[in-house]
């Protein structure tokens, strides 16, 4: 990383915190659905990394144990080291946890309220659109050869039609990559 002055370092941490807080508030139906938005901000807007690096970090977060959302820890680390990892993770998880803490008890009572059901049914297609956008951007960033597209397609098919542990597929991808096939 290029040496940063203390003020610019603080500024980066602040920016990370603000950005990831925003992602968490927009994370309807799961944090992975905001990957496209993270990509837009981190790669296109701030230029903190290339699209290829972003795809690599997403891949690493899936290969490592832990909730998928910890891709933000990796992104934060890549941008601003340990402090960045901490800021990104906290911004992504803490404020929304407080919201959950505050409303979980009350909201259960509205389980069968028509408005709640309509909101959930209306947000479902949004989530699908966001997930498709995230995968579209990942595929474009990750797949630089015909073989890579084939690997992506085979992975998706295997995940849809079998119950295999995805770790095997990641292992196979690593081996194929090392052998120069992808």
């Amino acid at each position, binding site marked *: 990383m290029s040496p940063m002055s203390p003020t610019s370092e603080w500024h980066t941490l602040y920016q990370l915190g603000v950005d990831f807080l925003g992602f968490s508030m927009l994370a309807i139906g799961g944090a992975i659905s905001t990957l496209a938005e993270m990509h837009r901000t981190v790669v296109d807007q701030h230029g903190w990394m290339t699209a290829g690096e972003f795809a690599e970090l997403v891949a690493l977060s899936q290969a490592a144990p832990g909730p998928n959302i910890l891709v933000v820890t990796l992104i934060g680390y890549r941008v601003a080291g340990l402090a960045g990892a901490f800021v990104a993770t906290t911004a992504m998880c803490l404020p929304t946890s407080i919201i959950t803490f505050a409303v979980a008890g009350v909201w259960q009572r509205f389980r069968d309220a028509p408005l709640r059901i309509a909101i959930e049914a*209306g947000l479902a297609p949004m989530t*699908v659109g966001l997930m498709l956008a995230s995968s579209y951007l990942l595929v474009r960033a990750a797949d630089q050869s015909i073989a890579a597209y084939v690997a992506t397609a085979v992975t998706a098919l295997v995940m849809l039609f079998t119950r295999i542990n995805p770790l095997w597929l990641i292992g196979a991808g690593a081996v194929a990559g090392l052998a120069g096939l992808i």
Partner: protein
Amino acid sequence: MTEQGEAAPAGDAAPERHAPTVSELFWGFLSAGVSGFGGVLPFARRMIVEKRRWLTAEEFTDLWSLCQFLPGPNIVNMSIALGLRYRGLPGALAGALGLLGAPFFIMVGVGALYMRFGSVPQVKSVLAGISAVAAGLVLAMAIKMANTPRVRSWMALFAVLAFTAIAIARLPLATVLAVLAPMSIVAAWLRMRSALARTTGDGR
């Protein structure tokens, strides 16, 4: 939207639910967190419903749909809501810290290795391989979510609009949601009402 809760055995004959202590919450979520490759949900569900019997399958599905609905990472919300239900604030903290603590440091370790060795040619090749696979994993998740009854209808139009706005037009997510989400919710509302009118018939 990954409705895994439906596969519950109908004969919930032995609902001997166990109310976890604070330390059980911590260790339970820790074990689910570190064993969760490519998504923690299935592991968390197995731990909570089948192994430790903190919730019945139906309660789990209910709580999960709430956690999906609320903003933020679903699984983190789950650890908070479940901990809160049984042990209040200490339980919520124990659940979330158990879930995130160890994986956080694992990710920092992975990040440090990446920064150090990420540009070594062999590592680059491996990363190219797993990136292609990881893109396929996310794609499969998206397709699974799309393949549910409430999206497999003309509501899919809103999925197409959201996709186009984000992936092709590259518009900010906040803008897209502010415009599309209310429309989509109203459409879902109207669809519900017409479905209701059809089932109750014209006896009004």
